[in-house]
């Protein structure tokens, strides 16, 4: 059986070398985000043109490289040209013909469409030397993402896949725990609990059977790291899970993912069956005596199911309300049996650690937080996408050097880290190193890796209201503290954004936030304190403007703003706003042809502001709303 894997591996490697050394390949990223950018059309077009022209090229569908801002992404490798693989960005259908005729058929590598070349580190990790971000990034979890075909286990095998598992299966479980301990691996699901300690705790318990759960629920709105890993490199997670199963003695595993991620489900199903085919799952894995299989469970859209005790109820088919701990899940989890729950990235990192050694891993990052952190960078930032940096890298580096900063010259205002449970950190915190402990001190948390940038066009009070609204909707309703206090906080914030808040409300809000942080069953509701307290702490002036002057400085809160067309700036012949206004709220003065907004018809959708040509910029927002009357008066009616 051992020989069997080595055979497979050698064959896969040979095929891979042929593919990489001789064949003309076109890699197209078709993860969910790529699809939204039109990658499937690009793919289809490449297929048709290549067939029509009779070019001998392999089209490979790959996952996400993390450069989501430039999707659809295409990598073309033409060994005959003597050039390394070239990465192209923004390749929508209109560019396909150019690439096919220019590079596939001809000798022109179409450099005007290229983002850079793909080079490989010693361990085979691809990087793009032309993109400065790769100097800061260190890719462990994302190592294979966007370069290998997630639906072809051969690609994974060719890069040494499952050999680590084979080796680990011959090790004593305690030796593996020691290696993980040497790496000082902390769970990537948010809390940062020591993985070695969790596993040892479970290993020491006698009861059988034992279960293993991979937490791929990723309920954080605004986060997509786990989705990308599972869509792009599912086998590294499966391999990590089987290693864990061997350590704790689990016979059955589950991957619990979200129904909102259909592509993850589709790709995982394929990966699981391929892993079974090569004997990495099932009976007597690689002749080691371990029997272990993985079942895929699709959640049904409840944020709280990411919490481990709720997840366990969900798998059991019960109403998923978290319970008080102890007992911990490692003692009494799924069907009352010992259960280990770990995050997707934790398993992927276990695979890397067992491959490269715990010592090497522990040298990356900081003393308290080793290894790398994966962030999903989104919101108001240029290079939206996935980022993997050593722990301890400063927020500034991640947002400005990797992410390219805030678009259109606007000012950075805050970064929201850690999902709804996290906090909003201001400019003055940008030099904080990202690691579990520094972030917690600042009032945020590492979370599982969502990082949303906010700029001067985001209102922090409205942002706090948004998180409270989210948590209130998702609160399971089991404990009264969670149910009632979050609701009360939401009501207060709703008042404030409508201009009906008072100064006393701010103190009340802070007091409630401190209460809720103390008295709930799980962290869903207690974390409602974080977004509220951090915004109050760092952006108090914005709150005060709302309650004292009934003004929204960011010009976002609908009840506190009015749209206004500056007559001097309105180009009379242009009718953009009139034609696009959904409620016909814009009139044209017959004599001057200037436009004016009928305030009682305006629904404040912002379309006129979007469509007003940038050279006129005649549409503005004003706050407080009454200010518009002064402006109209000054303009003479």
């Amino acid at each position, binding site marked *: 059986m051992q020989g069997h894997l080595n055979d497979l591996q050698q064959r896969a490697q040979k095929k891979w070398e042929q593919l990489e050394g001789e064949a003309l390949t076109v890699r197209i990223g078709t993860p969910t985000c790529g699809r939204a950018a039109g990658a499937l059309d690009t793919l289809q077009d490449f297929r048709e043109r290549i067939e029509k022209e009779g070019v001998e090229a392999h089209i490979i569908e790959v996952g996400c490289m993390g450069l989501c801002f430039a999707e659809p992404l295409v990598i073309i490798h033409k060994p005959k040209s003597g050039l390394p693989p070239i990465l192209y960005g923004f390749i929508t259908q209109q560019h396909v013909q150019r690439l096919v005729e220019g590079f596939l058929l001809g000798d022109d590598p179409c450099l005007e469409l290229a983002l850079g070349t793909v080079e490989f580190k010693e361990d085979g990790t691809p990087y793009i030397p032309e993109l400065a971000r790769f100097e800061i990034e260190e890719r462990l979890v994302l190592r294979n993402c966007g370069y290998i075909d997630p639906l072809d286990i051969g690609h994974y095998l060719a890069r040494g896949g499952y050999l680590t598992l084979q080796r680990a299966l011959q090790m004593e479980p305690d030796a593996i725990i020691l290696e993980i301990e040497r790496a000082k691996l902390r769970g990537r699901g948010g809390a940062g609990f020591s993985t070695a300690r969790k596993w040892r705790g479970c290993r020491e318990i006698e009861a059988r059977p034992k279960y293993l759960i991979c937490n791929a629920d990723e309920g954080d709105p605004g986060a997509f790291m786990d989705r990308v890993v599972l869509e792009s490199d599912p086998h590294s997670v499966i391999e990590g899970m089987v290693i864990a199963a061997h350590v704790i003695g689990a016979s059955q595993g589950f991957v619990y993912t979200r129904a909102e991620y259909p592509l993850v489900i589709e790709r995982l199903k394929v990966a699981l069956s391929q892993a079974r085919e090569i004997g990495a799952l099932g009976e007597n894995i690689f002749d080691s005596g371990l029997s272990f299989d993985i079942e895929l469970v699709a959640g049904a*859209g409840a944020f709280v199911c990411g919490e481990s005790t709720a997840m366990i109820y969900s798998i059991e088919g019960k109403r998923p309300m978290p319970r008080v701990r102890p007992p911990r899940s490692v003692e009494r989890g799924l069907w009352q049996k010992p259960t280990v729950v770990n995050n997707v990235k934790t398993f992927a990192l276990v695979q890397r650690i067992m491959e490269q050694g715990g010592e090497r891993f522990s040298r990356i990052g900081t003393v308290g937080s080793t290894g790398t952190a994966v962030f999903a960078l989104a919101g108001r930032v240029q290079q939206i996408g996935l980022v993997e940096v050593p722990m301890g890298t400063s927020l500034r580096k991640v947002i400005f050097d990797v992410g390219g900063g805030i678009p259109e010259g606007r000012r950075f205002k805050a970064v929201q880290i850690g999902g709804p449970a996290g906090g909003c950190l201001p400019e003055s915190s940008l030099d904080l190193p990202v690691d579990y402990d520094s972030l917690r001190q600042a009032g945020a948390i590492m979370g599982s890796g969502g990082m949303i940038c906010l700029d001067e066009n985001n209102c922090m009070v409205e942002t706090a209201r948004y998180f409270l609204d989210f948590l209130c909707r998702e609160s399971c309703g089991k404990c009264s503290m969670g149910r009632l206090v979050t609701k009360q906080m939401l009501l207060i914030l709703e008042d404030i954004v409508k201009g009906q808040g008072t100064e006393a409300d701010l103190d009340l809000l802070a007091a409630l936030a401190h209460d809720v942080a103390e008295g709930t069953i799980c962290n869903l509701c207690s974390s409602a304190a974080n977004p509220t307290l951090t915004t109050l702490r760092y952006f108090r002036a914005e709150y005060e403007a709302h309650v004292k002057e009934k003004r929204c400085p960011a010009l976002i809160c609908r009840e506190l703003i009015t749209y206004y067309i500056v007559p001097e700036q309105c180009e009379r012949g242009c009718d953009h706003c009139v034609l696009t206004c959904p409620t016909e709220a814009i009139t044209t003065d017959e004599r001057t042809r200037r436009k004016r907004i009928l305030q009682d018809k305006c629904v404040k959708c912002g379309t006129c502001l*979007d469509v007003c040509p940038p050279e006129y910029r005649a549409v503005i927002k004003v706050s407080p709303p009454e200010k518009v009357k002064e402006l109209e008066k000054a303009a003479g009616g």
Partner: protein
Amino acid sequence: MTGELLDSYPAQRHSLLRILQAVQQTEGHLSEEALAAVARHLKISAAEVYGVATFYNQFRFIPYGKHHVVACLGTACHAMGGQLILDAFERELDVKAGGITGDHEWSLDRVGCIGCCTKAPVVVINDVIHARMTPFKVEEVLAVLGFKKSKKEENAGAGASQ
């Protein structure tokens, strides 16, 4: 219909979520009869089944429209103006999130992130993702999909212009 479907799942509590998903997939929503049938199949009370089903956002107790619109209000989409997009759909379709138009053509829902945050704000209509939406694009997308404002409004519009 539900009977045959149910028989293909073992009568284990562990299968409940999967069964509910399958029923919704084939019937479009979870009717009272379907919930009762699921309860009989698993030999648990209908209240238990209802308790689980209502906990999750994915399950619907009224049918979908022919076009099902889901507006994302996750953090990234919200930060990029997702609320304005939902507002625009509510206004154009004249239904609230969770509702369906009188002719059963259009239903509207909200979701808390589909993992496509890099293209925020996004909307999913019958499984197709529409990226970087604006309120204006809402009208365009609806027009392309054949949405017509209700007769009443058209008449009102016609009346006004006469």
